[in-house]
């Protein structure tokens, strides 16, 4: 058993090392990190993905594209500096003859860069997400070049990624996925989790059900306690309803009932089950005295379970009190 597993482990390890090494060297600026395709413009990273919406709908590609078709390149910044940097995007036909092994140095040696260029988006600052669209007229080998300029130092950072349009082979993706599956299976087997999972299914189910039931219990309380503080809310214009902007009055007091005055109050909130926040940025606009604070700009945009997170900052420190709210 042990020898068997060691052998499989070794095979998996070797396969993975080869694949990762290929990814890192051959793909220049675009690498696979966990399940995320990442472009590295020097040290600046962005989530990189390409779509061919006409040819394959919502399917994401990391680099190689199956057909010559309308292609949308997307970079979602993982580094804030990219938000303020002018970024340009160029696609050239691969005239380096190096295919997957083309690097920045090879691109820099191209004499007629414009002649080889099939798409060029001049530098623009995109504060949210960087996107370009290009319709490939023919299949072949291409090289993408992304450069970003640091606005203060005017230093330019670049990423180069060779890719194929209309690639016929399936590449090594199936191997890669297969290897991952093997690795995970091995982990589950070796750690005994698989067994525990099958064995412990009954109790997990019960625990899950209890959790669901807990979440479904409506909360009618208008206060919450935490860290020796109690925060109570009232809504002067009637109970909170969906889709209407309104104000709250927050009352903050200690566990002994002493009002907390002159505190800084920060309010956030959202629906934990839906993974989104409030539709507005509410703020405390006035301290009313006696531990009361006016909170303006509250709005809920759907029914369900909400949590309002009130951070009370005083000289003693800061305390977060979460008010549950069932609408």
């Amino acid at each position: 058993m042990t020898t068997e597993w060691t052998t499989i482990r070794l095979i998996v390890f070797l396969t993975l090392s080869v694949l990762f090494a290929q990814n890192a060297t051959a793909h220049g600026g675009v690498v696979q990190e966990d399940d995320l395709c990442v472009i590295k413009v020097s040290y600046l990273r962005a989530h990189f993905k390409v779509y061919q919406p006409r040819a394959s709908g919502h399917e994401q590609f990391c680099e190689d594209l199956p057909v010559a078709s309308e292609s949308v390149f997307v970079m979602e910044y993982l580094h804030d500096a990219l938000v303020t940097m002018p970024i340009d995007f160029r696609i050239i036909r691969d005239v380096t003859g190096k295919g997957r092994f083309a690097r920045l140095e090879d691109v820099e040696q191209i004499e007629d860069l414009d002649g080889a260029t099939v798409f060029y988006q001049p530098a623009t600052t995109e504060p949210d997400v960087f996107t370009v669209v290009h319709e490939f007229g023919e299949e072949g080998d291409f090289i993408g070049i992304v450069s970003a300029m640091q606005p203060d130092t005017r230093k330019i950072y670049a990423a180069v990624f060779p890719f194929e349009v209309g690639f016929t082979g399936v590449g090594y993706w199936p191997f890669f996925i297969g290897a991952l599956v093997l690795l995970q299976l091995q982990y589950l087997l070796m750690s005994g989790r698989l067994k525990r999972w099958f064995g412990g299914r009954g109790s997990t189910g019960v625990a899950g059900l209890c959790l669901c039931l807990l979440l479904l219990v409506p909360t009618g309380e208008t206060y919450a306690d935490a860290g020796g503080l109690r925060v109570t809310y009232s809504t002067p214009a009637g109970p909170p309803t969906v889709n209407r902007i309104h104000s709250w009055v927050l009352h903050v007091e200690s566990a002994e009932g002493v009002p907390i005055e002159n505190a800084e109050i920060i309010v956030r909130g959202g629906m934990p089950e839906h993974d989104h926040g409030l539709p507005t940025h509410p703020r405390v606009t006035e301290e009313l005295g006696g531990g009361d604070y006016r909170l303006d700009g509250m709005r809920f945009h759907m029914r369900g379970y909400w949590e309002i997170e009130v951070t009370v900052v005083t000289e003693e420190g800061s305390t977060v009190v979460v008010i549950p709210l069932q609408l």
Partner: protein
Amino acid sequence: MRSTLVLVVALAAATAFTAWWLLRSTEPPAWNDAEIVVLQSLALESLPLLPPDPSNAVADEPLAADFGAELFFDARLSGNGGISCATCHQPVRHFTDGLPKGQAIGTSKRNTPSIIGTAYSPWLYWDGRRDSQWSQALSPLEDPNEQGTNRIHIVRIVARNPSYRSQYEALFEPLPDIADKARFPDVREAAHGPDWEAVWSSMTPDDRAVINRAFANIGKAIAAFERTLMPRASRFDHYVDAVINGDLQAQETALTDEEIRGLRLFIGEASCTQCHNGPLFTNNEFHNTGVLSAEGELPDKGRVVGVREVLENPFNCLGDFSDDPERFCPELEFVRTGTSLIGTVRTPSLRNVEHTAPYMHKGQLATLAEALAHYNRAPDAMIGHNEAKPLNLNGRQLRQLEAFLRTLSSPIGSE
């Protein structure tokens, strides 16, 4: 003999069971109290009184609505003299145009949304780049692809038309004298690009303010008309009435069993009311639902750009042209910004959705079935994060949902 009796009894039992099973499987279960509350919240009866718009002093003036209606249908208010608001917002199509994207002087950026009930929305446009009906009404006039003219030309058209002039002056102040073409250049072109910038910046700040003031007033008259466009009761509304009154006969007349099952999915398993809630079936909020980019276009960034635009717009609630001395603008003041808005657009109303195809912000989906299939899959968004989760409904359930959506139709026209 005995065996015949057994056979008859067995047959009778089988028939009874079959009848029970069939009846059981076609009769939708009754609504519980919590569900009735949700049904009631969606019915037109629950629509609150239209809140006042303090930024528009003539919002509820019938004379302003009449003047606004004339302006709304007047194609002279355009660069080529052939495009009015109603070119795209066609009353017979519930103020939409049946096209993926609006077609006027050119092609609009997005799908033409209905105007009905938008007086209730804190935000206008798919990306919410305007915060009132009156400031919204100004934009198409100056959009090179829509009405394609500019504010000076619009004010001049109103000033030169005796009927318009008298209606304007009865509602607002005397129209400024803009006959001097040296001070107020005579251009018809769209307020767009360097040529327009040159014309506009050649004017004195006072003259620009005079034009802006009159232009804003014209928008306020159009908004007074648009404020009167309210939805009419649909079969769904009659059904909710019947449920509340316990009138079984009326319930059966209003909706079929399949439609009722669709309604149950709509407020339950399909989670549609997370966004399509309230009597207008919209929360007027911004959501990313992972719709594919339109052909030849970049994915739409939506609200993340729209929110910047509304904050900078000189005709917004906090701007110089609001009639509210208090500048009470909580929506603008407490507006959400940030990356969670990437790729989000405003939830449209579902009233008359059957008649407002194609769907989505670029009209990407041609039919209700396609729209439902999209939500059933909830694919990853091209940019940002799709907030919807896959529904995993079967084909029959999707057809029931579609049948329910068709019960939200009402006669053309407003009440």
